[in-house]
């Protein structure tokens, strides 16, 4: 892939995706992605948060070329891939951009041994070395697993282990971008942090850019350099993690932040406040909006009505 030296890992502009939903009952259109503009820098972890059904996975799957967007531009290291590889992604693209899925139980073929899964990834992308076995051992060790898991079947392993294998498979290809779609939500609480730490290690040691899709704001804050908030197919707010969560601007972000369980909080999230947010979210969504930069330093921006922006 003819990467441009200075281009970001991924740049997306004006991406739209509409699903026609419904079997016999009703046929309706769901606008899963609505004019998405997004950049992921090299070696950067960007968290994409939002409630269920907001379109997070769809975006990740579009970048992974599992779905094809209706329109928009998608540049990977400067190459406009939707134009150059219209029908199917090239091998080179596949080895640059990889994906880790939400369900570690579902993302490994139950009929194949780990060994086979990993070796297959290596071979497909011509990354296999003559000492394949040693390479495989290296690979599983790099995700913190002992070598003997190689001969097991997925169902013989715990969820955390499986997710690590899924990451190892992705690493086998030596990607530059990893799309991680809620990689920890199906895992036991106690091992989640381990997987997050592993992702952080990949960024730090291999300079891999990661799109971390989650609905858990706290983990996003823990892992990501930047957070982007998605609501009903639209990106509503974004910026450097800490700055954004310290002073969320968009009512939707505020509502999310307010709902995060917090042992320090004595009274639960105030229902009145929540209703206010709801009203405001609807108001904002109804009025013509624009991307307003709130803080240049932290890159904090919000999608807000022009009026409100002026007011601010």
């Amino acid at each position: 892939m003819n990467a441009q030296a200075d281009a970001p890992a991924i740049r997306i502009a004006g991406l739209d995706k509409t699903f026609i939903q419904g079997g016999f009952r009703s046929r309706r259109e769901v606008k899963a992605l609505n004019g998405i503009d997004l950049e992921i820098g090299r070696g950067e972890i960007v968290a994409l948060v939002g409630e269920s059904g907001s379109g997070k996975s769809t975006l990740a799957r579009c970048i992974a070329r599992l779905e094809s967007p209706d329109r928009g531009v998608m540049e990977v290291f400067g190459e406009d891939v939707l134009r150059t590889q219209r029908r199917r992604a090239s091998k080179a693209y596949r080895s640059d951009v990889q994906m880790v899925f939400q369900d570690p139980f579902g993302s490994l073929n139950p009929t194949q041994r780990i060994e086979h899964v990993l070796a297959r990834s290596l071979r497909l992308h011509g990354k296999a070395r003559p000492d394949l076995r040693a390479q495989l051992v290296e690979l599983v060790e790099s995700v913190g697993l002992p070598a003997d898991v190689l001969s097991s079947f997925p169902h013989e392993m715990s969820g955390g282990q499986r997710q690590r294998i899924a990451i190892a498979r992705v690493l086998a290809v030596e990607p530059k971008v990893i799309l991680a779609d809620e990689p920890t939500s199906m895992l036991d609480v106690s091992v989640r942090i381990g997987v997050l730490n592993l992702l952080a290690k990949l960024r730090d040691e291999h300079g891999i850019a990661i799109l971390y899709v989650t609905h858990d704001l706290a983990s996003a804050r823990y892992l990501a350099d930047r957070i982007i908030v998605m609501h009903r197919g639209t990106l509503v707010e974004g910026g450097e993690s800490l700055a954004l969560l310290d002073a969320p601007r968009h009512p939707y972000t505020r509502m999310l932040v307010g709902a995060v369980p917090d042992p320090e909080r004595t009274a639960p999230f105030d229902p009145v406040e929540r209703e206010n947010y709801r009203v405001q979210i609807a108001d904002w969504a109804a009025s013509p909006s624009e991307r307003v930069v709130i803080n240049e330093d932290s890159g904090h921006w919000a999608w807000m009505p022009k009026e409100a922006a002026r007011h601010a």
Partner: protein
Amino acid sequence: MSALLDIEDLVVEYVSDERSVRGADRVSFSITPGEILGLAGESGCGKSTVANAIMRLLKDPARISGGSIRFDGSDVLQMSADELRSWRWRETAMVFQSAMNSLNPVMRIADQIIDVLRTHNSMSRAAARAEAVRLMELVRIDPDRLKAYPHQLSGGQRQRVVIAMACALRPRLLILDEPTTALDVVVQQEILAQIKDLQKEFGFSVLFITHDMSLMLELSDRIGVMYAGRIVELAPASVLKNGARHAYTQALLGAFPSITGPRRRLTGLAEGTRFTDIGDLVEVAPGHFVAPGDATLKTEEL
């Protein structure tokens, strides 16, 4: 204060041809009236087993092979099928993990609520319907939705219907088995707030099961932490928050990043760590029980 529910050395086994698994192993705890007791632990540690054992809802390979369950002095394990039937829901109601599936998909909401009311109280249909309307209002759902089928409600609404149903007979104990895990954070908060409100209003005790420690700390009075069928630590929430003694509890608490404050590196529980030979609880401070010894730790460090 005498306990409403008193469980002692409860053992539940899943017996299959090849082996028998202990889903709950000598579990003891009690709940006093009006108390919210949280039960935390990773997946498969036996939380639901305990909850279902209390209502004796476990099915075939499961059997209760030890201990006792006393509810307000009467022995649940000795109840006949008929006694059990009238005890269930009237005294102890339960909200299951997934609201999606705990409502009968082919029956209207109203009928499912009325079913409960009419089975336990001999009331007329009309009265039961009026009561159903009241219950819906209680959980702030438009009573018009009584006519709806479950699939026509959102996940949060469904969960609230179940909660309304649970409150229908004013039970003295409410068991909530991960009532919000399938829901969005915002909805989750709404539901929890509602439960708190209802609890204040009716004064029932709650057995609250989840694996989300932050949620648990926010809601519960006392917390029990389970691991591999055993309770490894039992203490008031305030004590546990900063003074957890058991390594597993500490790992659990350490697995939740905070939404505020500086970013700290957390470790959680390392992959492959196993605790074995967990002993019986020992009271280390008033009301604070811990299973002795850090047990065996088998860890591959990251």
